[in-house]
């Protein structure tokens, strides 16, 4: 194989585009797990739910799936609030969140997946967008819109979440609740409300990420399972509780996959990603930017 500069640059570009998407998928976990300590292993199920909702609207009315998901994000927000409320009442308040909370979300993941199968069947669903088939070419480097548009939306969403967390009152309350709940209460803020809001935000990002997913590739209910490992891998790699860390972690994973696929053999790409995760857990559990 010719190791040309163009191939190398293409691999990096493809890795970055893919990484941007991975960031959108993982930013929710960065909030719910990284900051709130809620191991929402059902996060990918909500992503797939978002994909299907985008698919239905696109199929019926032809609207762009990403716009639809942004418009419908309040629905996911409400869903997140409801889910957190159940989780809090059943587990967090009783102090049993670790094992049982995990099992609870695992059950939710399966219920969501199987319900989607019962309603939609197992066929792969795709969407039609105006830009899916356009590719921008810069010399030998091609940038397909199918990946570039989700990339742009992801980065915007991650940046949006970060500025919400650092610049608004509620956002800073979320960061505070991760650090010291008691102090937060002493300052007159209800930690439950703050956590509820943050968790709801994480589910809202899942809804948007789902629309991005179905623009990039065909979707069927069980592909959520393949993202469970990935979202936690990105979160752990980047460092718990750091949004920029999640973005960088996502880029690292995307580029690692892209390089493995291009130069070594695509079969090994998942092993590389998860090997990275295992190595991070074993040697630097706080991740790249974690506290």
């Amino acid at each position, binding site marked *: 194989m010719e190791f040309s500069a163009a191939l190398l640059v293409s691999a990096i570009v493809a890795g970055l585009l893919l990484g941007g998407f991975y960031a959108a998928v993982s930013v929710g976990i960065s909030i719910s*797990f990284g900051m709130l300590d809620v191991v929402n292993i059902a996060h990918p199920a909500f992503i797939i739910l978002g994909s299907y909702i985008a698919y239905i609207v696109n199929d019926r009315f032809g609207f762009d799936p990403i716009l639809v998901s942004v418009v419908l994000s309040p629905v996911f927000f409400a869903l997140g609030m409801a889910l957190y409320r159940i989780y809090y009442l059943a587990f967090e308040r009783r102090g049993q969140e670790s094992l049982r909370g995990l099992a*609870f979300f695992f059950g939710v*993941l399966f219920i969501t997946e*199987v319900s989607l199968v019962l309603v939609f069947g197992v066929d792969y669903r795709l969407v039609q967008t105006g830009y899916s088939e356009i590719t921008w070419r810069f010399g030998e480097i091609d940038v397909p819109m199918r990946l570039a548009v989700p990339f742009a939306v992801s980065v915007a969403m991650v940046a949006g979440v970060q500025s919400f967390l650092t610049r608004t009152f509620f956002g800073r309350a979320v960061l505070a609740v991760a650090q010291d709940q008691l102090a937060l209460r002493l300052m007159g803020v209800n930690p439950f409300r703050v956590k509820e809001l943050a968790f709801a935000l994480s589910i809202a990002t899942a809804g948007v990420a789902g629309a991005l997913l179905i623009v990039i590739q065909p979707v069927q209910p069980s592909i959520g399972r393949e993202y469970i490992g990935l979202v936690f891998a990105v979160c752990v790699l980047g460092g718990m509780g750091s949004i920029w860390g999640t973005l960088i972690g996502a880029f690292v994973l995307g580029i690692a996959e892209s390089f493995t696929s291009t130069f070594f053999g695509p079969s090994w790409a998942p092993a590389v990603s*998860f090997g990275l995760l295992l190595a991070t857990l*074993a040697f630097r559990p706080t991740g790249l930017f974690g506290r």
Partner: protein
Amino acid sequence: MSNKLFAAVAFAIAVAIAAGSQLIGNEYFFTATYTVLQFIILATAWNILGGYTGYVNFGTAAFFATGAYTAVALYNAFHAPLIIMIVAGTVAAGLVGLAVGYLTLRLRGVFFAIATLALAVVLYTFVVNWDYVGGARGAYILQPREIPLGLPRYIHVLYIAMVFMCAFALVVARAIETSTLGRGLAAIRDDELAAECSGVPTLRLKIFSATVSGALMGMAGTTLPYYLSYVEPSSAFSLSYAVNSIAMPLIGGMMSWLGPLIGAVLLGTIQQIVQVTVSSAWNLLIVGVLLVLFVTLAPNGIMGWFDAWLRARRRS
């Protein structure tokens, strides 16, 4: 009841079940109960690390498939007899548990859970790329022509092996539960920091627990190749093994060896019935719903209900 007595009783029951099963002419009984027995072993194994020690393992399939693929490799190498496959598969899965435990059990429980997920993916990729055991193409394992012990069909041999392995797993689980080791694990589950401060060698115990748990899961997988005659990675590494091995102890009760047994028999039987009556997409839905209901409303499982009922009776 001492452990030795319990073991004797367990094996006596196993012998009785094995002998009694020969009276059943219907082969469906064997194939249906094989699956339930498989789940009893997996649930019991999971509970050693999950219920006793408090560390959730999402990678049941990784250990299970290690046992299965070790059996495949030995079959390809020299047509190993079943007993060697079982022993080798158990040891291999135990080593995997040891390795993963050593790497990740120093961290919080949640990171261990994520690491087990990662492990499943890494092992899956490794198996897919390993042509010797068939890779993605799958491996064919033909049941031997001569059936040992003069039994009529090979499925009977597998069934009897599974019955004895169940008994073995239950004996091991109970032995751990009632020993000093078990109390150490319970201390870790309740408050790891306090346990460490009280002098419990937490890391060593956790690694031991992970090794035994992994080994037993691998043991359950060793009969899969002969049972199916065809092993391929995506079904061997299926996530449904993980969800079942978590749901069953949770529903049955995680505090003792009896819980996973109850949960596995109950849930396994329900699934087998659903399989041949309603559409089986409902299978996983039922497991998921039961899991969520029990974990929210009855966190101590069926055993927990039973204990609460006993306590209420004693009070009145």
